[in-house]
C-alpha cells in the first residue's frame, strides 16, 4: 500500500514539535516525518531525526582533482614550449606552485558547491506537498503515512494545534 504525504501547518514551533512527538508515538517512523521551516532552527529543535551526510569528502576530492589538473597544465605548457625566459629554469616550480594552489582551491570550492546541492537533494524536480505560508514563518510538519491512517493523522495534527492540514488532491 502506497504511502501518502500529509502536511500540517503550525504557527508555533512548540506545537509543531508536539505534533512531531504525537506522530512518533502514534507509530509513524521518524524517517517519515519532516519539518519544513523558513529558517534554520538549531538541530534537534523539533526532536527530528539526525541527518547523515558526506559533504566533507567533496572538497578533498575537488582539491586533488584541481591540484593535479593545475600541475599538469602548468608543467605541460612549459615543457611543450621550452622557451628560456630570464635565465629561469624551464620547469619553474615556484611559479607553478602559485597557479597550482589556485587550481586546488578552485577544485575544492566547485566540488563543495556541487556537494551541497547534491547532498541537500536538490534540484527537486517534482515538488511535494508544500504551502507558501511556510516562508511566512509557519512550520510545516510533513508526514507520509499509509492511506488508511490519513484521517487519524489529520486528527493528531489538528489536535496538536495545526492551523491547516493539507493532503494531496
Amino acid at each position, binding site marked *: 500500500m502506497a504511502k501518502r504525504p500529509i502536511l500540517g501547518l503550525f504557527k508555533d*514551533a*512548540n506545537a509543531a*514539535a508536539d505534533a*512531531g*512527538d504525537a506522530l512518533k508515538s502514534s507509530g509513524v517512523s521518524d524517517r517519515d516525518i519532516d519539518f519544513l521551516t523558513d529558517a534554520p*532552527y*538549531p*538541530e*534537534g*529543535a*523539533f*526532536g527530528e531525526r*539526525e541527518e547523515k551526510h558526506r559533504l*566533507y569528502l567533496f*572538497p578533498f576530492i575537488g582539491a586533488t582533482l584541481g591540484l593535479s589538473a593545475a600541475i599538469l597544465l602548468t608543467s605541460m605548457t612549459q615543457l611543450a614550449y621550452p622557451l628560456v625566459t*630570464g*635565465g629561469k629554469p624551464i620547469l619553474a616550480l*615556484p611559479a607553478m*606552485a*602559485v597557479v597550482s594552489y589556485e587550481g586546488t582551491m578552485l577544485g575544492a570550492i566547485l566540488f563543495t558547491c556541487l556537494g551541497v546541492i547534491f547532498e541537500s537533494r536538490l534540484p527537486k524536480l517534482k515538488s511535494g506537498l508544500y504551502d507558501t505560508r511556510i516562508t511566512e514563518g509557519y512550520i510545516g510538519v510533513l508526514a507520509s503515512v499509509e492511506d488508511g491512517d490519513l484521517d487519524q493523522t489529520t486528527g493528531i495534527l489538528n489536535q496538536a494545534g495545526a492551523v491547516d492540514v493539507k493532503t494531496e488532491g
Partner: protein
Amino acid sequence: MSSHSESHYPHDMWVFPDAQSTTQDVARKTASTPGILKLGLAIAGVLAILGVVGFVLRMTSDGFSDYGAWGYYAAIFSYIFVITSSAPLVAVAFRLTKSHWRRPISRISELFALVGVVNVILYIPLIYLLPPINNPNFVPGMHGELQIRKTIWMEVPFGAPHLWDFLGIISLAVLSLIILWVSVVPDLAEARSSANGWRSKLYTLLAGHWYGTKKQWIHQKISLALLGALYFMMVVFVHFLIVSDFAMSLIPGWKDSILPPLYTVTGFQSALSIILIIAFTMRKWGGYEKYFGTSVFWSASKIQIGLTLLWTYHLFAFFITLWYGRMELEQNILRYLMFESYSWIFWLNVIFIFLIPFWILVWNPVRKTAWGPALAGIFILVGNLLFQIRIFVGAFNAGDIYHLGLFRVPPPVFPDVWDVFIVLGGIGLVAFIYLIGTRILPALSVWEVKEGAMYQKMGTLYRGEYLVLAKPE
C-alpha cells in the same frame, strides 16, 4: 571544518562548573605539589644548571670578543624571548575579543610574565656580543666596505641598538608583570584568608587592597583592556627591534621587510602551542578536567591552524620575491638560509611548523580533542626552535658584516656540546621558573571562570538542549 561536523548532543557542550567549589579547589591544587610536578621541577633544575655550566664554559673558551661562537646562545635567547613575550597576548587578545573559551587558559598565559625576567638576564651578554653599527676599522675607499652597517637605526642614535633593545625587553617584562598582577589580584584576595603560611602573607601583600567593590572591578577591567592593547603594540615593536638588530643586520645586504611579521607570527604560534600543552597537562594530570572543556582546545586550534597557514604564507612571500629577481645577493641569501647551508634545518622547520600541525589540525574531530592541539603544539615548538637556529646562528656566522652584501655562501655552523647545554639550559630555566610560579600563584584564573559561569548555561529550545551564551554590552 565546521561546528556542525557531527551530531550535537548536550555532552558535546560544556558549561563552567559552579562558582562555589572553584576557589577552594584551585587553592588546594596550588598548595599541593604532586609527584609528577616535583619530577618536572627536578629535571628543569638540572637542565638549568647544565645551561649555566655551558654558558660559563663558552665564556671562558671563547669570550665575548668573537660573537660568532654565540650563535646558538642568540638562537635560544630569541626562542625564549619570542615565546614568553607573546604568551601573555593569548590572554590579552581574547579578553579584548570577549571570547568565553579563553577564560580557563588566560592565567596560564599571563603567568609567563614571570619568565620575562629570564629574557632580561639572557639579554645582558648579547649587549657585549652585538658588534657596533659603525665599522670600527673603516678605511675610506676600501672596496665593498660600509662605514655604517645596514640597520634600522638610520643616524645611529646614542646607545643604539644595544640599549634601546634592552629597554624594550625590560619594559615588556615590567608591563606583563603589571598585567599579571592586575589580573591575579581578585583571586589572591579570595584565597588570602583560606591560604596559610607564607602564601597568605604574600597574598595579603599583593591583594590586601581588594574587596571586590563595583568600582574596583570596573577599574580592573578597564586597566586590563588598556594595558593589554599597550602590551600588544609593545610586543610587536620589540620583536621588530630584536629580529632586525640580531638577525637581519648581521647578514650583509639582507633587506627583508617581511622578517619582523614572520618572526611575530612564529611567536604567536608557539605561544599558543605552549599554552595548549600546559592546559593539556593540567587537564590530564593536574586534576583540572572540569575547568578545561574541549571547547577551549577546539576554538584555540582554529586560531592555531590560521596562524600556521599565515606563517607559511609569509615564508612564501619572502621566498618568491627573492627567487624571482636574479640578484646575486638575494640568491645567496636564499642559498644560505634555505637551500644550501641550512637546507635540512630549513626543510625540517617547514615540516614541523607547517605540514605536520596542519595535517593534524585540519581534522575537526581532532581539533575537538585535547591531545590533538597539544600534539600539534609540540611539533610547532620544535619547528620554531629550528627556525631560530636557522636565522640567528646563520646571522651570527655570516662573515664580514660590514661588507656590501653576502657574495659568498658561508658554511653552516653545528652546535658543539656547550651549545647543546646552553639550549637545553635555557629551556630548563624557563620551565623551572614557570613551575615555581604555578606553585605561588593560582594557575587558573578563578574570577574569569566564575564570570564565565554566570554568562553561560544550558538552555532548552523546543526539543533540543543547547548552550546559552550571554554577551554583556
